[in-house]
Structures are given as C-alpha cells and as structure tokens.
C-alpha cells in the first residue's frame, strides 16, 4: 500500500483512495460546469448577436493579376510595357439575390456605360451565384466610365472597378503580328484546363509562344468588406509574381523605321542579320490595332477585323506566299555556275522575244537589253538570258538548288502558322517524270507555280550575303528574371549550308552590287556612302492580264554593306507594281535609317 492510511484519515486505504479520486472527479466536474456555462452564454444568451456578426462577416477574395513580363529589343529598349488600367468586374455573390433586381442592376450598368446587356447577363450566368471571385466584364475602362461607376456605386451592388496592369504599346499598331495580342482565355483554352476564367493569355505572336514565361503567377488578397461591399481591410495578401523578361533580337528603331516606310502599303518587311540569323525587324501591313485588341474587344469590332478583305490579322512575312519573280534568277545563276553549265563570260543577245515550240516568251523590256552577260543579265533582270539559262540548267537542278537555298521549306522561325512555299515538281506522264520546257522557262524567271514567303527570301538572301550559311531565324535571345537569372536562351542555330565555289559567290555578289550601283533595276535603292547590293523582283499575280500590269507584287531583297554584309532587308509590296520602282525605294529608306540615322542619333546623344 503506497498511499497508505495515515492516522486520523480514512478508515481504510481503499476508502482514502476513492475519496481522493472523488476530489479529482469533482474538479473535473467543476470544469465541465464552467465550460457549459460559457456555451450557454455564447450560444443561448448572446447567440443572436453572434449570428448577426456571422452574417456580416464577409471576406472577399480578390485575385491580384501578375504583371506580364516585358519584352525588350536587343538594346534593352522595351517593346511593350504595362500600365495600370481600370477593370470593371461583377461579384456574383454580392449582386442582388432575386433575379428581377439583379437584372435591374445589370441593366442600369449596361445603360450607364453603354455595354451590351446580354454580355453582362452571360458573364454572370457562366459562374456560380455563390462565388466571391470577381468576374471581369470590361478591361481598359476609361477614367470617365470609372467615375460613373463610382458615382452610382450605391445603386450598383456587386459591381466593382479594380486597377490591373495592362499591356501598353509604343504605338497603336507597333509590331502587332510579331508581339501578338493578349486576351482573356477563350472557352476552348478554358476547356483544356490550363487557364482560369479571366486569365490574360497571349493569343498570337511572341506573347503566345512565350506565354508560360510571360504570365507570371497571380497573387491574391483576402479583403474584409462591410455590408455594402466596401473594403474594410486586407486580411491577408499574397504578392503577385511578375512574368519573366524577354530579350528579343529586334531593334525597335529599325522596326519603327520599317513600319514607317511601309505606311499606306500592303505587304511585308523582314530585316535580318546575315551573320547570325537575328531578325532585327519584321513588319506586316496592314496591321491591326494591337492596343485595342488587348483586353476585351466587343464582338462587332472583332468580326470587322476577321472579315476585313485586307486580312490585317495575317502576318504576311511568314504566312503569305508569293511568286519570287526575278529574285529567283539568283538561284538559277548560282545553279548554272556551280553545275558548270553557265560561265560569267557567256553572252546572250536579247531582242525582247524568245521563241519556244511555237510560243513566244517576252522580256519585260519590249525592245530587249541587247547583248548581255550574266552580270548584266542579273543587273538588268533580263528574262531572255534566263529563259535560255534555265533550259540549260534544267528543271531538276533548279529545283534542287532552290531547296538548297531553303526555299519550299519552313525556316523554323519561332512563330506559329509559318507557310512552306512551293517548289514545282516535274510532270509525270506515262510513268516518267519530265519537265515541260515551258514550265522550266517560267520557273527560271520566278513565275509559274513557284511560291515563297518573305522570311524565306530573307534567309536565302542572307546566305548569299554570308557565303552559304542558312540560319534558323532567331527572334528571342533569352528569357530571364532578376531573381533567377536566365531561364531559357537561344544561341542561334545553323539550319544548313549552301555549298558553292567561292568564285560563284563572288560573281553573285558582284552582280547584285551591279543591280543597285551599275545601271541595274535596283538603282532606286542606291545610297551614297553605302554599298548596297540587291535584287528586284516583280511577281505576276495569278489572275493577272496585260491590262492589270500595275497589280503585280513588288519585291526587293537587299544586303549591305555589299563587301561585309551586316543586314539583309527584304521588302514585298502587294499589288504595288515593279520591284525596282516600288519596293527598292522602301528598302532604301530602311537601310538609310539603319546606317545613317543611327549615326545621327549617336552624334546627337554624344
């Protein structure tokens, strides 16, 4: 017996033990009594007050949109930025409960801001009525509209205006196709489950390609609000994590110069560095208004854009295919020289006409060019010379060398929807394939079935400039963030080599110099103090007839300086007319901006 009996205490040990247990049990009972008393007080006496408190107790969870990453040009100048913008949102939970007064609120809002009433109803119908999460109905609200909503706040329960970062662009149509527009996730994207409703997603161009990097991670705020929905305080906050920075290969100055030079024309410009494949500028006109496209655009405006006969959404630099016209003579010349079928010394007498099997093929110059050698034929773009040269080289060799220059194959540029172009194939007759001479003659001057894209031409011209290296066009140098360094980078990639003898390259470059500087078709691209080389092209459009001569597509593909090329500029003007008259002056403006305005700018800035 440990807790043994002590004199004067309980009669037996067991009894004493029980008494002590009773003492402990009594203490516990007392505890229970106190707890039950407190519950009686809280739940029965004060219950009504606490019920009120729980009804008033609301916490609104507000997502805080992460600013999208910023895209920079090669010199660190921003191409797009973010600015704060007003977003109009509805909070389903705080709209009136009964349908009639809820519709009244939506109707009032629609009338106030001139919004389509159905869109507001749809937006609310898509989410559960219990949701605290704001549903965005309009982004980029004007200051005026914002003020109206604030003014009528008490009549508009469940309607809020928030400030969110939104894309801002240097100008309304700046690099629209290249950058791409950012809009709310589509129903299709929501179904794929990668995005939440209201997420801003890059829908085209680089914004789409790099969306994962650019989007960042949204933060959130738990906000306590009172019965009127007015925020009382922030209970808890998670900071948004901004998107990563993207350093592109573009040069904003050149891009702007190229866009300016194309003003009022439909077509495309590609500016490439032949030393590494960097795309310095890429323009497609007409462009869409990228700033109006970001955020919410009403259906009408969208339909207008999609159905526009000028196709402003199309990136003509990579998605439109044209006959190369006389640009292709460079390929024929290269093939003939390398295969030993042509020499620089061969001469042809051009009378302006060429007869083949009863058909007459004409030169663009009616009276002909007289006696021309290869250099002169390229410089003046003599068709008669290349009709004969084409027949001597043969369809197979021409097609093979066209492919070697990367035509008829995608360049692999990091933008979606690139078109492939087309190199014709021999016709198959009775199991044997053969090139009808008429096809070969047409192909030799870049007409017929041949199709190329401006970016393919840029890469091909870069190969001429750099001695045969075919680059994969590079648009993005790296993706980085201040806190984590470089996340992704593209060191540039050589896609292939065009193997021509050094003497052949020399002849080609010399001839292309002559195009601009020695009585050639590209004289309009001549710039004093800069050696420009290039080739003009005029692509007959499919349905053209003699009467519609002015509707040809005008090409000019140039590189400069001719001896040590730093840039390739390709200009295409749809239905512009002759390459030398329309495209070459545009190329000159761009080249001028690249080589001289830069110097001027440097001088001004010291």
């Amino acid at each position, binding site marked *: 017996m440990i807790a043994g009996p002590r004199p004067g205490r309980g009669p037996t040990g067991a009894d004493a033990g029980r008494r002590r247990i*009773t003492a*402990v049990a009594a203490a*516990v009972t007392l505890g*229970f009594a106190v707890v039950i008393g407190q*519950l009686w007080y*809280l739940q029965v006496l*004060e*219950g009504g007050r606490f019920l009120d408190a729980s009804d008033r*107790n609301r916490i609104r969870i507000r997502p805080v949109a992460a600013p999208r990453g910023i895209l920079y040009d090669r010199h660190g100048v921003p191409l797009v930025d973010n600015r704060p913008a007003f977003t109009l949102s509805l909070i389903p939970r705080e709209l009136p409960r009964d349908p009639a007064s809820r519709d009244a609120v939506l109707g009032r809002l629609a009338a106030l801001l001139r919004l389509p009433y159905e869109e507001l109803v749809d937006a609310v119908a898509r989410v559960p009525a219990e949701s605290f999460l704001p549903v965005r109905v309009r982004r980029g609200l004007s200051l005026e509209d914002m003020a109206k909503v604030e003014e009528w706040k008490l009549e508009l329960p469940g309607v809020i205006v928030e400030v969110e970062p939104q894309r801002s662009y240097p100008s309304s149509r700046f690099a629209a196709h290249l950058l791409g527009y950012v809009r709310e996730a589509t129903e299709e994207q929501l179904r794929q489950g990668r995005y939440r409703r209201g997420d801003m997603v890059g829908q085209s161009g680089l914004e789409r390609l790099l969306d994962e990097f650019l989007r960042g991670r949204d933060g959130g705020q738990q906000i306590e609000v009172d019965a009127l929905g007015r925020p009382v305080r922030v209970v808890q906050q998670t900071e948004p994590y901004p998107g990563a920075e993207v350093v592109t290969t573009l040069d904003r100055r050149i891009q702007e110069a190229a866009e300016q030079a194309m003003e009022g024309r439909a077509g495309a410009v590609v500016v490439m560095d032949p030393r590494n494949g960097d795309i310095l500028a890429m323009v497609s006109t007409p462009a869409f208004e990228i700033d109006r496209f970001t955020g919410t655009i009403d259906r009408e405006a969208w339909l207008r854009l999609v159905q526009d006969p000028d196709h402003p959404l199309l990136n003509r630099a990579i998605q439109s295919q044209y006959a190369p016209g006389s640009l292709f003579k460079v390929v024929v010349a290269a093939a003939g020289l390398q295969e030993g079928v042509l020499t620089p010394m061969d001469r042809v007498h051009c009378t302006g006409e060429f007869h083949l099997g009863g058909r007459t093929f004409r030169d663009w110059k009616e009276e002909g060019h007289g006696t021309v050698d290869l250099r002169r034929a390229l410089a003046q773009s003599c068709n008669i010379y290349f009709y004969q040269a084409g027949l001597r080289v043969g369809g197979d060799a021409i097609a093979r060398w066209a492919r070697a220059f990367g035509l008829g194959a995608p360049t692999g540029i990091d933008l979606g929807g690139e078109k492939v172009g087309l190199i014709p194939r021999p016709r198959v007759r009775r199991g044997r394939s053969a090139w009808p001479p008429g096809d070969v003659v047409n192909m030799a001057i870049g007409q017929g079935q041949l199709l190329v894209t401006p970016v393919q031409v840029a890469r091909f011209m870069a190969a001429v400039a750099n001695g045969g290296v075919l680059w994969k066009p590079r648009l993005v140098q790296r993706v980085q963030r201040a806190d984590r360094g470089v996340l992704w980078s593209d060191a540039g990639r050589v896609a292939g080599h065009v193997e021509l003898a050094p003497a052949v390259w020399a002849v080609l470059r010399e001839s292309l110099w002559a195009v601009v500087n020695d009585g050639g078709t590209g004289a309009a691209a001549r710039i004093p103090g800069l050696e420009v080389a290039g080739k003009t092209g005029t692509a007959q459009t499919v349905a053209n007839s003699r009467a519609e001569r002015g509707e040809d597509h005008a090409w000019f593909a140039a590189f400069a300086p001719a001896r040590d090329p730093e840039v390739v500029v390709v200009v295409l003007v749809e239905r512009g007319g002759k390459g030398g008259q329309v495209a070459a002056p545009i190329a000159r403006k761009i080249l001028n901006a690249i080589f001289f305005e830069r110097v001027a700018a440097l001088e001004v800035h010291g």
Partner: protein
Amino acid sequence: MIGIDRRLVQNVDWTLLGTALAIVLASATTLASLQVARAGGGVALRQLAWAGIGLLALALVASVDYRRVVRAAPLLYALGLGGLLVVLALGRTVSGARRWVLLGPLSVQPAEFFKLAFLLTVVWLLTTRWAQPPGAAVVGLLLLVTGVPFGLIVRQPDLGTALMLLPVLAALLVGAGVRWRYLAGLGAVGLGALPLAWLALRDYQRERILVYLDPFRDPLGSAYNVIQAKIAIGSGQLLGKGVAGATQSRLAFLPERHTDFIFAVFAEMWGFVGCLLLLAGYALLLLRGFDIAAAARDPVGRLVALGATTLLAAQVLTNVGMVTGLLPVVGVPLPLMSYGGSSMLVSMLTLGLLLSVRMRQFQ
C-alpha cells in the same frame, strides 16, 4: 497473455469503447462536412483510418498487464526524452514550430506520446517500495522528472502539450496521498516560477496570453482566431445552423478548423444542444475512467486509471475552454475529435490503459 483468461474479455468496458467510437464518428462527419482536402484522400477518411490503427494499438495495450507497462516506465521515459531531443535537433518546422519528426512517410509528434510515458513514470515513482510514503525526496525527484521535459516541450514551442503534464502530476500526487503541505509547497513553487515562465515564452505565446486577458487588444490580428471562433460558436445558438448554414466554418473564416478549433465547427453546426450531447459523451468517458480508478485492484492500477482519466479531462477542458474564449489559445487538440494521427493514437492508447486496468480489476 492475449485472450487466455476469459474473465479478461468479459470485463472489457463496452460503454467506454462505444462512447469513444461515437465521438470518433462525430469527428469524421464534422471533417467530411468541412471538405478540407489533403494529399492522399479526404481528411475524414484519414481520421477514420487513424482511429482504426488506434483501436489496434488500444487492443494491444489492453491485453498487456498494466503493471508490466508501469515497470517499463523508466525505459519509455528515456525513449520519450530522446524523442524530444531529436525533435529539437532535427525536427520538421511547420508554421514556426518544431513539433514533428519524420518517420518514413509519417510525421510524428513525440510530445504527444511523451505524455503517456510521463504518466507511467510518475506512477512508477510514486509506487516503488522505497517511495512510500511519498516524501520530500520523491516530490523533489518528481519536480526534476517533470521540469526537464516541460522545458524541452515549451522550447518546441508547444505550450499546450507541456501544460498537460501539470494536471496529470497534480492528480497523481493527490491520488497517491501526498501530504497536503507538499502539494501546497509545489503550488507555491509553480506560482513562483510564473514570472520565469513568462520570460521563457515566445513572443506569439505572450501575445496570445495578453489577448486572452484583453481580447480587444488587437481585434483583427492575433485575437482574430478567438473572435472568429466565438462568432462561430455563438451563431450556432440553441439548435445550430446545420451543415449547409455553417458559414463561419465552411467559408474558412475559422483558422485551424479541422484540428484545434474543430469544436467551434461542431458548435456552429449543432448548437448548444449538440454541444451538450458531445460534452455528455466526454463526461461519460471520464466517469467510466474515474470508476475504473476507484474499482482498481491495486494502487498501481488506481493511479494509472486516475492519471489517464485526468489527462483526457485536462485536454477536453483546455481545448473547449480555449475555443470558447475561457482560456488563452495554447494549442491543445480535442481528444478523438481533432484531426491528427498522433493525437488520435495517443488518445486510443490512453483508453487502452484504462481498459487494461478495468479488465484486471477482479484478478
């Protein structure tokens, strides 16, 4: 020794077991209504799984003679103390506290298990032959045995679990018939140590105590939990709001709503009547515990049962007290209700000790 003696099986206390299982079911339904998602299935199912494992452990402990368990107490105590040291050295930190040790896929809270080792050790000290009658030497030894782990657990910091050691010690001293003046002396030492304890507390612990003393000291900061819990409980009123209407709980205004504050969730859903029923369940459990202690065949059994019952009672009263705003928030789970494997397992082991004593009361 399992199942050899038929009287052992006949004396299983089915009321005790049945009541415990009813509380576990109340826990699972409450958790299910909260729909708190956790990796690897719903919290409710995991809670039931832990209860199942707990029942196995309970059967194991009940089948062993409690006297053998008490004899092993010093070893368990050493193991437990080792566990506490391991936690301090390389425990996992969750929201600022080092309470968990990873054992394979499980994270274990050694302090939870230490409570039982402590209980058995105190019983062992009070009942060894050289200890009778418990005099000044034993009381001094007990101070040491209590003080060291108390300090270690407070350091984690887990003030709640550490505090649970004190009522157990007090009840065992009373139950063992320690002279009142020793008890009074111990009480005086405890009071004298309060200022020291204040210095040892972490900032957030002090803040909680200050908030308890003055709830409107910071109504939107650290008093937030207490106020939200009070609103939840109070708004349940007499009959509760039911599962669907329990906005406080379901809309996540309540912090820790599936663990320490689960009583507030239950109170919001089922009101005063529901709370009375739940507390009646606990009261029944505790009454059986005191009954087992009173009917025990020997002093060892009596003290083991008394200690186990007191441990459960202290946790129930502290948890409900802190959730209803009667006590500072010290972080004590509600036995059998709060979600958590360690807590469930230890509650079941405690019940196992009670059963072990009950089954052998006529031997």
